[in-house]
């Protein structure tokens, strides 16, 4: 990466549109106690105080994002209204380097896909750097009348807004260009964090946001993604092309924590566990999260052909060993934040692109992670890492969520093979399962804002409506096979045989992303939570525990993808008690507070219930919005049933005392469906009860009082719904 004459000329043409200075103070025990507000429509820039109530009830990260968005919008604010915001906040623990996985930022906005509240987390440098520059959150409102670049200058303590003199649109180029512009020399590149999207975010509702981190070995800005829910689309709708943060230099204790030694002690022990055991466990340092591609296939959980099946005879062609041995560069520090011992941001170097505008270029591809391999691979019936990595690269640089895209294209292929759409509708693309070439062309069309690719960028919910209204498709069938809930596409796990995971997906606040709960092994394999009450307890504890990471600026993977050797002797090994205790210690070490593991859950409960009520304020968040597509629960078609007929027939016998012999499959499908849909309704009842909600999914006033979240503005909404 170097400053070319062409880039220098571009930079020289750039105009400064606004400059605003502030007085910098060091972070105090994880907080700046102020946030930064920028209106890109009128260039109003100001700082806002973080009150004690905000810290007590909302903690930071996603909590701050939700609070600021609530205050900034009305119940009927639309995603593309100027008053909608994109909020970025790392949380009080975010930015420490003594414990692994502490570089996360949380983005919050009203989603173009769900019309409700979206949150998405991402690694990379920007969030911590913004915090060290002086702010606990960045609140972006308004709409610019031209593309703008926002610069948070933590060296000279200024906020600047620039025009765009013609920088690249796509993130793999733009992140490098802006890093070069704002770093005085190559040594300063490590002090820069860039936020950007890409060409496809401008033409779709599913735009993703990239956060850069500097890779000193590769001498390049690499990218992590806040993918879910179209926040990149909101960013581009505001005509924000990029946001850059710069600090003077990374130092060991910029959070000025209360007790560094306690954090160091836990961090060192954790790092030693990673060093000693990662190779014997998940090989996160060698394969990243993609280590489970083949594991999921073995357990019939890898989505193939639009979630019809959980495995495939060609799944061995995308075994994670291939990534380790053929694609991922080994023995490099692939941490997306300082001090992370997990280092799971694996990359494929010198990958030669075969299609699209960068055909022939040799690039570094960030990933594929598990979700990407499943979404862009097996779920489309594609079992070829060359094709998956190519699509991975283009999704990232175009600003498209790989999870969302994988589920959308899988759905389109299912529609194509069922005759709901055809070549005439797709403009000549043959969207059969396994057709990697046409799937890639669909993605390039989306980036160009053309053809059927642009239509695909509407997302599954809107595509279903379009196919029913325009092409007379069977609405019930599309609702069964269209893998979305609340308007968000499912992430990449087959939940058919785990009732708890069906809830873990469809009962989420933002839509079916696995970051709230991943209970499939506990439920389906381990049989640890056999009763409705057991499942409800798991669907209380894990979503609350996992919400907490998003309040802090922490990475969930670090909690769960390595276990200490003595974990097996603990009473609750699935919770990894040593790591839970680490988190309590780290939070107390940063803030000087004295919480325990029970208060940790309470902190999350307050924010989780707030988000549920925020959804209700916007006309969502009720029981009917927790409904799932039937393909998430069971076999929709005869083909699906017969592919696992022995198992399903046995279930009819064991659970319903029905002899399947002699019954036509279509009848068995119907019996199974009635049973499974009834089970899901019972699960909803049990979980709502455990969470302190009414049967309609509304938080009870009494529960809000019990958890200390009985704020007047919340009672005003839930009171009439009790």
């Amino acid at each position, binding site marked *: 990466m170097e400053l070319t004459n062409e880039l220098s000329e571009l930079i020289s043409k750039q105009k400064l549109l606004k400059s605003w200075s502030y007085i910098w103070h060091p972070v105090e025990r994880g907080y700046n106690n102020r946030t930064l507000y920028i209106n890109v429509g009128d260039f109003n820039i100001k700082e806002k105080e973080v009150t004690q109530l905000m810290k007590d009830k909302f903690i930071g990260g996603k909590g701050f994002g939700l609070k600021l968005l609530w205050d900034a919008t009305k119940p009927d604010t639309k995603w593309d209204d100027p008053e909608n915001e994109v909020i970025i906040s790392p949380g009080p623990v975010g930015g420490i380097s003594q414990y692994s996985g502490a570089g996360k930022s949380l983005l919050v906005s009203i989603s173009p896909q769900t019309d409700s509240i979206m949150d998405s987390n991402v690694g990379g440098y920007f969030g911590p750097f913004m915090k060290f520059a002086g702010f606990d959150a960045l609140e972006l409102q308004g709409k610019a009348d031209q593309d703008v670049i926002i610069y948070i200058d933590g060296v000279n303590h200024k906020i600047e807004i620039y025009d765009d003199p013609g920088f690249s649109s796509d993130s793999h180029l733009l992140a490098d260009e802006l890093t070069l512009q704002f770093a005085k020399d190559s040594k300063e590149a490590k002090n820069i964090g860039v936020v950007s999207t890409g060409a496809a975010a401008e033409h779709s509702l599913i735009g993703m946001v990239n956060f850069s981190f500097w890779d000193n070995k590769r001498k390049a800005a690499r990218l992590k993604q806040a993918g879910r829910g179209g926040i990149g689309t909101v960013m581009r709708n505001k005509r924000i092309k990029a946001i850059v943060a710069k600090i003077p230099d990374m130092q060991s204790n910029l959070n000025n924590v209360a007790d560094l030694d306690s954090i160091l002690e836990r961090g060192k022990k954790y790092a030693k566990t990673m060093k000693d055991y990662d190779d014997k466990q998940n090989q996160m340092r060698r394969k990243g999260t993609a280590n*489970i591609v083949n594991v999921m296939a*073995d357990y019939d959980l890898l989505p193939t052909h639009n979630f019809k099946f959980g495995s495939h005879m060609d799944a061995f062609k995308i075994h994670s060993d291939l990534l380790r041995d053929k694609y991922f560069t080994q023995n490099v520090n692939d941490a997306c934040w300082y001090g992370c011992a997990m280092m799971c941001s694996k990359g494929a170097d010198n990958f030669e692109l075969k299609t699209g505008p960068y055909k022939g270029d040799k690039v570094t591809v960030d990933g594929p992670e598990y979700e990407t391999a499943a979404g862009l691979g097996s779920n489309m019936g594609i079992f070829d890492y060359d094709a998956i990595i190519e699509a991975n690269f283009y999704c990232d640089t175009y600003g498209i969520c790989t999870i969302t895209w994988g589920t959308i294209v899988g759905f389109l292929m299912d529609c194509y093979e069922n005759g709901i759409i055809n070549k005439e509708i797709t403009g000549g693309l043959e969207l059969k399962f396994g057709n990697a070439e046409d799937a890639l062309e669909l993605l390039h069309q989306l980036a160009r804002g053309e053809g059927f690719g642009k239509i695909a960028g509407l997302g599954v919910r809107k595509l279903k409506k379009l196919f029913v209204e325009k092409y007379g498709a069977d609405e019930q069938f599309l609702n069964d096979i269209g893998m979305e809930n609340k308007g968000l596409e499912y992430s990449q796990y087959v939940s058919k045989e785990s009732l708890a995971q069906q809830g873990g997906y469809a009962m989420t606040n933002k839509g079916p992303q696995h970051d709230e709960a991943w209970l499939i092994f506990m439920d389906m394999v*381990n049989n640890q939570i056999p009763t409705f009450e057991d499942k409800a307890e798991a669907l209380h504890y894990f979503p609350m525990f996992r919400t907490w990471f998003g309040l802090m600026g922490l990475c969930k993977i670090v909690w769960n993808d390595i276990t200490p050797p003595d974990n097996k002797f603990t009473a609750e090994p699935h919770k990894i008690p040593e790591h839970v205790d680490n988190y309590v210690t780290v939070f107390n070490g940063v803030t000087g507070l004295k919480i325990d593991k029970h208060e940790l859950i309470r902190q999350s409960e307050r924010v989780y219930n707030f988000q549920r009520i925020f959804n209700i304020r916007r006309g969502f968040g009720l029981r009917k919005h927790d409904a799932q597509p039937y393909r998430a629960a069971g076999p929709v078609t005869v083909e699906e049933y017969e592919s696992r007929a022995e198992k399903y027939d046995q279930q009819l016998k064991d659970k319903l005392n029905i002899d399947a012999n002699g019954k036509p499959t279509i009848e068995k499908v119907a019996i199974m469906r009635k049973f499974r849909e009834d089970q899901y309704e019972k699960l909803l009842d049990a979980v709502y009860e455990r969470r302190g909600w009414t049967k309609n999914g509304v938080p009870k006033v009494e529960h809000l009082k019990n958890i200390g979240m009985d704020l007047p503005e919340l009672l005003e909404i839930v009171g009439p719904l009790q």
Partner: protein
Amino acid sequence: MILNLNNREEFFESDSLNVSELMIIKKFSYPKIIVKVNDHLIEKEDFHSTYIKDGDKVVILHLLAGG
């Protein structure tokens, strides 16, 4: 033989299996697991030498609650 595997009764063709063989039959490939046979913890290095017989209670906990 019939085993109680993760609190479910399951039939296996063989009358005797060691833990490694059981894992292969079940396609239990995830590496982060805890194995107990009749409430006794079995270390990974003992999977080959630990034999399971009819009526045994086997627990194989998969420690993935993440994703």
